[in-house]
């Protein structure tokens, strides 16, 4: 089995999930194993390896999180805040991928420790460009930090 980078997509809008998955497919990013989580609490369970996500073979620890801000239960910013408080997990790179261009959202995300902030573009090709760039930069060029995962 070829080693794949696990990317955790935390996104509640099924349309967006579909479009993003299509964009990844279109961009031909076969090195990526995408895990989709649809609410904040589930995202924290996944990262903790708790609840439904204890099996790391099925649910491997991600190298990158694509995090939407507006989520059911815990919001994206809450998930981010929680993550940066975890001694073992706090270095995990997080890219905010959202439709909000509000300054307050952007600033708060960076304040809480987001590594990048991207606005969901309009149009298919633009989205393909975005995911291509993410792959290029964060998975291929970027040196990933060591994140300890006991479980």
């Amino acid at each position, binding site marked *: 089995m070829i080693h794949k980078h696990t990317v955790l997509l935390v996104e509640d809008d099924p349309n*967006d999930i579909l*479009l993003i998955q299509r964009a990844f497919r279109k961009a031909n990013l076969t090195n990526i194993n995408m895990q989709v989580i649809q609410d904040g609490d589930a995202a924290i369970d996944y990262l903790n390896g708790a609840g439904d996500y204890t099996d790391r073979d099925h649910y491997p620890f991600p190298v990158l999180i694509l995090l939407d801000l507006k989520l059911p239960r815990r919001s994206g910013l809450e998930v981010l805040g929680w993550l940066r408080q975890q001694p073992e997990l706090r270095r995990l790179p997080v890219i905010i991928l959202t*439709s909000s*261009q*509000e300054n307050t959202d952007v600033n708060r995300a960076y304040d809480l420790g987001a590594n990048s902030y991207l606005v969901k573009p*309009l*149009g*298919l090709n633009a*989205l393909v460009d975005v995911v291509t760039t993410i792959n290029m930069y964060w998975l291929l060029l970027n040196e990933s930090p060591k994140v300890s995962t006991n479980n």
Partner: protein
Amino acid sequence: MRELSKQISIGIGIAVVLLVVNAVVSYGSISQLIQNERLVSHTHQVIGELESMFSTMKDAETGQRGYLLTGEPQYLEPYQTAIAQIKAKVTTLQNLTADNQRQQKRIADLQPLIAQKLAELEETIKLRREEGFAAAVAIVRTDQGKKIMDGIRQQVAVMEREENQLLQQRAEDCEVGAKNALLTFCIATLADFLLLGLVYYLIRQGQFKRVTELEKENQLLHQLETEKNYLQRSEARYRSLVIASSQALWLTNPKGEVVEEIPAWLTLTGQTQQEAQGWGWLSKTIEAERDGVAKGFLQAIANKTIYESEQTVEVADGTYRLFAVKSVPILDGNGEICEWMGTYTDITARKQAEADIRQLNEKLEQRVIERTQQLEEANEELEAFAYSIAHDLRAPLRAMQGFAEALLEDYSNCLDEVGKEYAYRIVTSAGRLEELIQDLLAYSRLTRAELNLRNTNLINVVEEAINQLQTDSLQFTIKGALPSVMAHRNTLVQVITNLLSNAIKFVTVGVQPQVTISAELRGEWVRLIVADNGIGIASEHQQRIFRVFERLHGIESYPGTGIGLAIVRKGIERMGGHVGVESQVGQASRFWIELKSVENR
């Protein structure tokens, strides 16, 4: 002044004394003169008497000789007369020279000689008569008679000499006395004149001084009068002020006791003078405040300071009203209190009004708080709404556009031209909606954002705006210098971008847009003018175009959201500036914005 009148008195005193002395001395001198005169005449009298006596003796001898020669008795007549007179004459002489011992002695010596002579004369006469001429002549021939007569003559001569000496001496005394008297008189008179002159001078001096002092006094009086008038006016003013501003005037002695009539107080409280007397006035203050008032006032009496308080006082109709009380100690020249003057001003209405105002203020504040809260809520809702637009509305939009594009890309071979056209329309509509949402969000952000104004280089901003338009930059001409303005850079970039995109958008089909950008200084303002060669705007529309969603043209001829100029106006207004347009239909338009110049700050 007192000194002067003293000097004058002394002068006059000395003059009078001198006059008296002069008079006394003169009287003395004249008395002396008279005395001397009397003595001289006395001496003359003595001499006369001496000669008269001697002549009488000679008369007697002459008579004797005549008889002796003739024997005729008629010749005895002078003899008889002389005999009869001689004794009296000697007595007279004795009397006259009573004050002169030497003459008295001489007279005493003379008397026997006279007696001898008279005896000789009598004897010879008797002999002539009885024995005849010869017997008598014999006796005469003895020269006895002549010797006696010589003795008498000698004695008389001695006496006369004495008297003459006296006479001479007295004449001399007299002369000296007269001279002295004259001299004394002259000197005294002269001294008097001098003194009188001095006194006159002093009086004149005094008069002058008195006149000057009188003038000064008049001046002082005038001044006093003026001051008195001023004081009276001031007092009247003060009094009317006090009467006008307060309900009652109140007077006490230094110990705070009412002693004088205080009618205003009595009218106010309904007390009788008797009741108010002493500290009786205090009983009208509400009981709860009485001790405090007494304490405060006693303290003020001890310190001689003004006593101010607010007191609840029972007035004539039995109600209690609130008074502002101010008691002022009136001090005398030594800083001691001579009386207390108090004013009672009814402040019940004022206090009520203050309380009302306070209550109103509280209500108002409460309402402001409520309104602010409501506004904050509304604002939060608006923000939530904007957030929701930004996030939730755009999600389905993205989906619409994304899947329509996916259809076109992934299933184009299953769609005929009409199907493709429909899918394409979905894509463009979604694009327009996205544009609209972006503009609305920009407008909304502009409304809420805090804009810090900084020194902003206008030329940089204009160039950046031209770049953002991503169009042919040759359409834009910058004319002249563009000064710096006070602005929020990003907002200004957005504003100018909108203005420029407007300028190149609204042109007649086929016309190459030409936009001129210039600036002019208007006082403290910098006006940036964007002049186009476009289709122009009717004057009735010139205000409308700056409102949100206002469009003058169909979406087909000139696409747009109708928010661009609203953003221009909102952005400029948020930066404290103005916007405007000068245009006519079919003519070019000149849009302008005004911002504060950097120089005038």
